[in-house]
């Protein structure tokens, strides 16, 4: 069996790390984008998979960093099968209502990482993906990007960035699907991650749990929630959560 190649952004910890670990266990060669060089988990994982895991410095909010990462991957492989756009940030300004002063710098920071980051990363890796077998672009979005289901009364920076991401993915889908690319858009659920700075122990899911569902969705045509083989309609873009539920735009 030929080795598949994947790039994962934001793989230092949390969901990104769990996705990397899951792919490595499946024998994939993984290029793990690292934004936190001092965080130890990827180093430990590399000791377990020295031949399959390559750690790349990657800041998805930076054009030059993304381009450098793409060049570094291209030095090691001529094709890429899977890109998982996982990197994302949140802000402690979420609860600031419109009645209070808004932090627009934070809004731009979140937009750069959560919305534009996956788009620029996808664009940078498209040439490699084009030569791959799966040609699959995966995006970790959020229910917070669902306008139809939105019930929050603030969270402007985060919700706007995720809604914009969904639109950007849709546009990429419309442009690239005719060329054979396939897409997955995923809401991972509320996870016990460090996204807010400290590990959220109140959340309902371990990252590994969400990653397991995600990888089934990202890699296969078998939907994760009923163990029955279904052909995912590759010509329809939807956002699904870790339980396989479809979320409205």
């Amino acid at each position, binding site marked *: 069996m030929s080795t598949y190649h994947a790039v994962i952004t934001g793989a230092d910890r949390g969901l990104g790390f769990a996705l990397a670990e899951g792919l490595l266990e499946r024998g994939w060669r993984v290029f793990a984008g690292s934004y936190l060089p001092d965080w130890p988990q990827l180093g430990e994982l590399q000791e377990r998979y020295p031949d399959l895991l390559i750690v790349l410095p990657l800041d998805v909010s930076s054009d030059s960093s993304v381009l450098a990462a793409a060049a570094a991957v291209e030095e090691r492989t001529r094709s890429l099968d899977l890109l998982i756009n996982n990197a994302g940030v949140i802000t402690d300004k979420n609860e600031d*209502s419109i009645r209070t002063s808004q932090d627009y710098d934070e809004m731009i920071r979140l937009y750069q990482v959560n919305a534009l980051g996956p788009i620029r990363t996808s664009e940078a890796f498209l040439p490699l993906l084009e030569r791959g077998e799966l040609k699959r672009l995966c995006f970790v979005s959020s229910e917070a990007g669902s306008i139809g289901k939105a019930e929050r009364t603030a969270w402007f920076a985060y919700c706007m960035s995720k*809604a914009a991401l969904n639109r950007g993915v849709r546009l990429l889908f419309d442009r690239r699907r005719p060329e054979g690319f396939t897409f997955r858009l995923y809401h991972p659920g509320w996870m016990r991650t460090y996204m807010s700075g400290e590990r959220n122990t109140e959340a309902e899911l371990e990252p590994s749990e969400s990653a397991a569902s995600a990888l089934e969705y990202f890699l296969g045509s078998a939907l994760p929630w009923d163990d029955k083989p279904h052909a995912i309609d590759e010509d329809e873009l939807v956002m699904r959560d870790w339980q396989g539920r479809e979320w409205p735009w």
Partner: protein
Amino acid sequence: MNRTAWILNLHEPFGAALGRELMSRGWNVIGGEPTDPDTREERSAAAKNGSGELPEPRAADDGWGSTIAPESVSPPVPGGDLSDEEERPSGWTHGAHIGENRDIPTGTGSSGLEDFEGSVAFGPESNARPKAGTTDPAYAEETQAPSHGADPNASNEAGAFVPAEPEDGNSDRTGGSAAASSEARTSGAASRIDLLVLNAGEMAPVFGHPSSRSIEGKTDESSVPGGWPADSAGQEDTTAGRLQDYETYALTPLRAVERLLPRMNAEGGLKRICFISSREGSISVGEAHMPIGRAMAHTALHMQAKLLFNDLRREGYTFRLYDPGLRPKLSGGSNPQTGSSASDSPMTPLSAPIAESARFAAGLFANPHANEDRLVLTGSRGEEWPF
């Protein structure tokens, strides 16, 4: 009771057309430009021949480049008689050019929308202009009583564009006393905002048909007149361009809401916030040829509208999210939609799509809706676009 509308980008073609429509329905209209207050002050200071002396802050200064439109004497003209012309974008959209030639239809009163306006989306309210008290000779022959809306507080008088205070402080242009009275009027007019219209960016008409795209089935607009060519994005698809789109179409409206919301709380105010957006922000039906940053920014705007709706609806605010059926104009370059028009001619009327869309918007914004508890992206034909 007089009603006051504050329109972001009043000088932009759609904003100007909407201002005119609202005025004709008895509204006072104030315009604002999305300029940073510090920048504006610097610009104003520079306009004073480098004296470095900053202008006196206006009583109603909100930190935005507010423009109070001139009081109607003869038929009010949005943007007409405004001072400080040299600081404005040039072209057919500004100044007294709009509607200057009354023999040329501007879409007002000739939109062809009468059959369904006020009946499809808005219940029994009429979208017609007020007839009594109007000074517009174009309506002089109309004799019916005013029927411009179900809002009991809405004025039936012809609307007023209050004279703008000259930003350059040159009292010679309007006279010192005029400037003083302008400030007083500005303060009074802007003390309460009933209708906040967030008209970000600049719209251009889509020649062909504004609703040429079907909701049910996509149309490849590369073959539709007025559609974006596939490679039209150009430099707008750089990171800087995408961030600028986000600033223009998503953050600027939010800044306006944050700053102006306190003025909408007054008792008796309409408390209505209207977003001018585009169905290009619709994830479901937006097309693929739109510059990606522009499309994403509009989607972010839709989310913003929903969050504000969730928060402020419970305080009595009502919302409109409107797709004027026009195209956001590409920045920094020629626009394919306007390039073939005689848009540089001062005698060119507002293009029919802009005028028609603005007329519909005025009815949509001024009238109550049957269901204010649901936020809907409404098109210029009253159709609903999905998110």
